[in-house]
């Protein structure tokens, strides 16, 4: 013990300070790498967000404009977008409902998703199915020749229920965006409102 206490070469100081230094360096580098990995995840999320926003804007643009008249059509294809082709995911699932568009993907065991709501009334199926469902519920298909005789609130509630089911879209194929008008007849006359149909 005496020999140990009389030793002035400070080898213990040296070893402890170097060990602390190595430990601190490891922690610092781990934090740096974690930050960089976080940026990669953020970029992936940003890509999905961009695509969801772009699709939402395309749908909203299809819904904007006239309140009555002939039905209008537009189309959208995810595969035509450069951002979609540059995505760092193996598989992207695209779901659409009457309320929102949702893009889901997985990378390195982590799930990513981007959801954007639509501004206009959306239904995730084609016009023939809409007419059939309206005919089943209200007796007429809501066309200009055969307007629906019901309250707006009743029709809106029915369409809202119809829109709750999610439709899965194929990103390789074109998606049709069609604005269809539903005609409603009341004591004041015939009025109309538009719905955007999203289907493949």
């Amino acid at each position, binding site marked *: 013990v005496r020999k140990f206490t009389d030793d002035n070469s400070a080898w213990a100081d*040296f070893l402890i300070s170097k060990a602390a*230094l190595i430990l601190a360096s490891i922690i610092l580098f781990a934090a740096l790498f974690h930050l960089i990995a976080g940026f990669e995840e953020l970029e992936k999320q940003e890509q999905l967000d961009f695509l969801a926003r772009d699709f939402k804007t395309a749908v909203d643009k299809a819904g904007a*404009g006239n309140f009555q008249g002939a039905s209008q059509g537009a189309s959208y294809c995810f595969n035509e977008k450069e951002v979609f082709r540059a995505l760092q995911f193996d598989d992207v699932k695209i779901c659409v409902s009457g309320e929102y568009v949702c893009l889901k993907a997985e990378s390195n065991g982590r799930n990513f998703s981007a959801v954007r709501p639509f*501004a206009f*009334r959306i239904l995730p199926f084609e016009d023939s199915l809409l007419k059939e469902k309206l005919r089943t519920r209200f007796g007429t298909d809501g066309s200009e020749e055969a307007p629906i005789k019901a309250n707006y609130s009743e029709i809106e509630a029915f369409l809202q229920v119809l829109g709750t089911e999610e439709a899965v879209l194929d990103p390789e194929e074109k998606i049709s965006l069609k604005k269809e008008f539903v005609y409603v007849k*009341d004591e004041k006359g015939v009025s109309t409102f538009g719905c955007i149909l999203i289907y493949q």
Partner: protein
Amino acid sequence: MKRGFLLLAVFSFISNSISNSISNLLESAKKSVKTNFILMFRDEIGVLEPQADLLSLALGVIGFVVLAALMSQVYLGYEDRSFALENYDSASLLAETLAGAPALKAESSNMLSASALDRLSGHEGIKEREQLFAAFSGNYLFLVEIRTGDERWKWRIEPNNVDSGSFKEGREKLAASVPVVIELNPAESVPGTLTVVLYKTGWN
């Protein structure tokens, strides 16, 4: 005359001694600085040497923390403004669409009708409001404000099925306006604006 010579001699003696002492002082200061510099470079005692790596690591950690703090600040700033950045286009699209709504227009012209606006913003316009907002999904919580350019007339149209507290003043919101022409009566039309005020909800 003798006294004058004596004074001159005393004065010259004093000035000479002052200038000598100043130059000596400067010389010694110069020498000491020079010696200190030389000493600093030749000093092998190593006061800071064993802790130099610790100091550099501390500087590295401080730099990293500052960088992380700056980046989080930038991200938080973007998050704060993301509602306005993301939804302005939607608000603008809604305003453009609503400016063309037949329910707001006069029958005879393509202008907004003051009487239609009176009806839509009043209690009796429940059915008209229902028809006007039927084309929009309930995801976006918005109201429509129409005002004349001189601020004399102002109408506020809110959807029917919305809680009264939804349009509180403190809530985060954004607005987009389009210019319109309002027909006050068949003889008078004035310019104005149609504004869509979009409120933040759980969706956006």
